[in-house]
């Protein structure tokens, strides 16, 4: 059975449609990335799945239940890293984990969670003394303390510097190897590409593309070959980069020229994402 099933989900705020009939599912044990620019409807969707918001239309099933009607035993099985939530400034890292552990019947041992989030050296530090990245890791620790099957990570690395982001990715990968099902929202393409087994690109409340990162790039615009000739950049777009490159280099060799600044640019998920989420002129 799928961990999450979403069918034709709709949600409006004051007559404005934030989510316009989206469908997707999360298979048990996979990392699913909901990718999109700010305001695309990612957080609204996640908060419906977490049980915070009521949806207007469609069907939502999370771990076999309707999130709005879910009970404490359902909450035992989910973990939430909200996009925005502060900590208790005067409680230490260990005290946070112990406090939240008390809400669950079978919490994961504090020491294990500390290891997972890499805050062993900060056990006794008050939350107000932690850096932004450390706070975010404690957020993750709080979500993990109940040993959930399903984890919601709403923009877990927004505002991180590149080093902290890479460290967070390692942590999320290690969660996946524990068999957790993870729903990740992000507006960082690289994050989705590196972490997610499957991605859905959300734009203005609609899914405009979905699949594995490889599938998405396969459906992408053509490869580009660029080089310089007489000081000007020449760009060749082609569906057959091998043949095109062969022809270009053959010609250059025959004429005894060098193809300066020669580059073959394969489409990345970023190109796909940008071409999908690009706003039409006038919008």
């Amino acid at each position, binding site marked *: 059975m799928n961990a999450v099933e979403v069918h034709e989900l709709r949600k409006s705020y004051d007559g404005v449609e934030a989510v316009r009939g989206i469908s997707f599912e999360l298979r048990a044990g996979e990392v699913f990335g909901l990718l999109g620019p700010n305001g695309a409807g990612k957080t609204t969707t996640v908060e419906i799945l977490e049980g915070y918001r009521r949806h207007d239309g469609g069907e939502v099933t999370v771990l076999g239940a309707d999130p709005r009607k879910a009970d404490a035993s359902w909450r035992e099985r989910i973990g939430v890293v909200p996009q*925005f939530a502060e900590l208790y400034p005067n409680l230490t890292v260990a005290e946070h984990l112990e406090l939240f552990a008390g809400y669950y019947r079978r919490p994961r041992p504090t020491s294990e969670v500390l290891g997972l989030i890499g805050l062993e050296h900060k056990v006794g530090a008050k939350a107000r003394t932690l850096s932004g990245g450390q706070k975010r890791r404690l957020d993750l620790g709080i979500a993990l303390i109940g040993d959930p099957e399903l984890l919601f990570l709403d923009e877990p690395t927004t505002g991180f510097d590149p080093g902290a982001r890479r460290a967070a990715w390692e942590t999320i990968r290690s969660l996946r190897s524990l068999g957790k099902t993870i729903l990740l929202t992000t507006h960082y393409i690289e994050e989705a590409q590196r972490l997610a087994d499957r991605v859905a690109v959300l734009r203005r409340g609609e899914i405009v593309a979905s699949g594995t990162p490889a599938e998405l790039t396969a459906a992408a615009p053509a490869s580009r070959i660029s080089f310089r000739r007489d000081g000007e950049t020449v760009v060749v777009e082609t569906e057959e980069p091998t043949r095109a490159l062969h022809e270009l280099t053959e010609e250059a060799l025959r004429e005894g020229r060098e193809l300066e600044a020669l580059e073959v640019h394969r489409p990345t998920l970023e190109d796909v994402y940008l071409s999908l989420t690009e706003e039409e002129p006038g919008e």
Partner: protein
Amino acid sequence: MSMLVHQLRAEQKLFWRSRELAFFTFLLPIIFFLILGSAYGDEELDGASGYLYLLAGMIGYGAAATTFAGLALLLVLRREAGLLKRLRATPLPGWVYIAAVVGSIVFIFFLESVSLVTLGRLAFDVAVPENVVSLVVALALGAAAFAAMGIALTTVIRSAEGSSAVVNAIYLPISFISGAFFSADSFPRFLQVVAEVLPLVHFIRLVRDVMIHGDHVWEHPGAVAMVVLWGAAGTVVALRGFRWEPRER
């Protein structure tokens, strides 16, 4: 049950570690009692020892400061910080959480009352009240009613910024016109009328009648009714409008 105890313990830890909250809600009434007691405690007020009169007033003020203002502030700050929302994602039932937060602040209020009585005995030689049962009943009644009103107040405060200003602007003037610090007899008539409509003046009067005259709570059904009525109104507003989530950002 164990979850309630778990949360109660955490609330106590959180309260005492938050220095501002501990100062303004717990320590301030004690400081006022010492200052005002030194200033005019040896006078006679409404036919009673000034110290005793003031002690009862400070307990009334303490109820407003802790179970009303302190509770409202604490909940608004946690709500706007997203802490209440985070709790809603855990299996902790909402009512257990609210019960623990209210229980913790009521405990603080009782601790405050005991401290005030003890301080009165030590510093100003005020006799310890005799009918303790009636006093405890009166305090419990007031604490419950003010806690309900405190939770109700969170429904009209929209943001963390300025929340303490709003809360102070409500409970400090009311404490004043309700005669917590001085006898309100010399205040303008319209202020006295305003105070009569509000619950604090009745609660303070009830505490004074119990502490000064040794009356029983049930001998003052009018005052009890006013406190209960406001508490009930607070409960209705709290149940209908309490929010766990911060304002949209």
